[in-house]
């Protein structure tokens, strides 16, 4: 198991964001999390890399137990790449600068090394010609592809995607999903929060359905999409697949 959570819970004041969530992911698996907004999907991803602290429960990532001490959070973040709904590129740095910064600061790579790796990744996401552009000069789809390349530059073992296409115009969703599909084909372990059922159907091995901070149902992609068992899953899918 590359990711394992035991009974993790998280509250924001009165709201229970995560309610004793258990799940496991194997290396090389692509798992999609679906569910209505406010169901705890994003909170779950944020807890995995320590951006949110869980109130209780245990998270183990690639053999590292995530606890309160900072060194474990740091180690775990080195294994996890994260892509955000709002891209979160650094606006004061060029595309190349965005890719190189953490490589040099965290991985302690030399400038030529990090640039070489960055250029290869930009080529992979089809944006080599944008290396000197600034984030605000790019379309949303291009920004998100840069954000994916930036995360990959750290050589993560697992990639977390938090609604990566939700802030995009419809005509740009395809180019981002294409990059993600290629990544899945290469065997990257991926945990994806998304409403793109088409992407799930094509790429995901498993689907997890969450509602009100709980995992309501999980199983093989075709089982969940074709014959969901729980009434809430059925209701949600009937709206999404309409």
């Amino acid at each position, binding site marked *: 198991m590359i990711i394992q959570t035991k009974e993790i819970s998280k509250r924001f004041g009165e709201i229970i964001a995560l309610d004793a969530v258990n799940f496991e992911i194997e290396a090389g698996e692509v798992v999609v999390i679906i569910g209505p907004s406010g169901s705890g999907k994003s909170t779950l991803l944020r807890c995995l890399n320590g951006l949110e602290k869980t109130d209780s429960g245990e998270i183990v990532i690639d053999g590292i137990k995530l606890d309160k001490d900072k060194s474990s959070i740091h180690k775990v*973040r080195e294994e996890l790449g*994260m892509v955000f709904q709002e891209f*979160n590129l650094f*606006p*004061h740095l060029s595309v190349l600068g965005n890719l190189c910064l953490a490589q040099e*600061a965290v991985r302690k790579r030399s400038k030529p090394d990090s640039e070489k790796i960055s250029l290869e990744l930009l080529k992979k996401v089809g944006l080599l010609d944008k290396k000197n552009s600034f*984030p605000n000069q790019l379309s949303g789809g291009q920004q998100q592809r840069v954000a994916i390349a*930036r995360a990959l530059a*750290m050589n993560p073992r697992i990639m977390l995607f938090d609604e990566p296409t939700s802030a995009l115009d419809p005509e740009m969703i395809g180019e981002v999903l294409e990059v993600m599909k290629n990544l899945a084909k290469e065997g990257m372990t991926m945990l994806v929060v998304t409403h793109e059922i088409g992407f799930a159907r094509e790429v995901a091995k498993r689907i997890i359905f969450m509602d009100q901070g709980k995992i309501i149902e999980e199983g093989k992609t075709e089982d969940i999409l074709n014959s969901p068992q729980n009434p809430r899953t059925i209701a949600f899918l009937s709206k999404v697949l309409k």
Partner: protein
Amino acid sequence: MFLREIINWISFQLHILKNILIFLAPAIPMTIKLTLVAFALALILGLLIGLARLSQRGLIKALSKIYVDVLRGIPLLVQIFFIYFGLGKILNLDRFLAGVIAIAVCYSAYLAEIIRAGIQAIHKGQYQAALSLGMTPYQTMRYVILPQSLRIIVPPVANEFIASLKDSSLVSIIGLRELTRAGREYYSQYFVDFQTWLVVGIIYLVMTLSLSRLVAHLEKKYKVHGYGIPH
């Protein structure tokens, strides 16, 4: 006849102005030195206090809030008196050091608030992105947040810099021979008031205008793509 009198008058006035300028000139470096040293200290203190205001730790946060509230609530002139005549007697501070400390401490309170606001203006997604890439909180602040905050911080900090240059004249009251003190000395020797304060004022103005030029240059340097009014 009449024209000649005017020319004589003008040349006499120019002569006085020149004498004043020659008298004041040696005091200008002290004003510059006082302002630069005090403001550099104020920036360092202000950054530390500004970061302390954002601390997760309750005690640090509370203490820094008290620091800001107290120091910006007391007139600089009173702080100068307190530090020179109060603390100065105990710690044996000379006039320059007392002046530097008073200006630095007072302005650090204003700067702390500006720096805090500049940091808080950066979207939380920037922290999350930097932390998720494995960067430490220090690296995040140093390479991601502060460079973006500079765009916001530079204009108001420049305001404070210019204000501190002007406020350095208050230190004349404890007898440090800077520009304003020199002006008072000239006046008490020759009883020329209008011309003396005119020259003192112009010298301050030349210095502050030079600073404004420097600031315009810095603002250009720390511009972040995608912000500002579109052209």
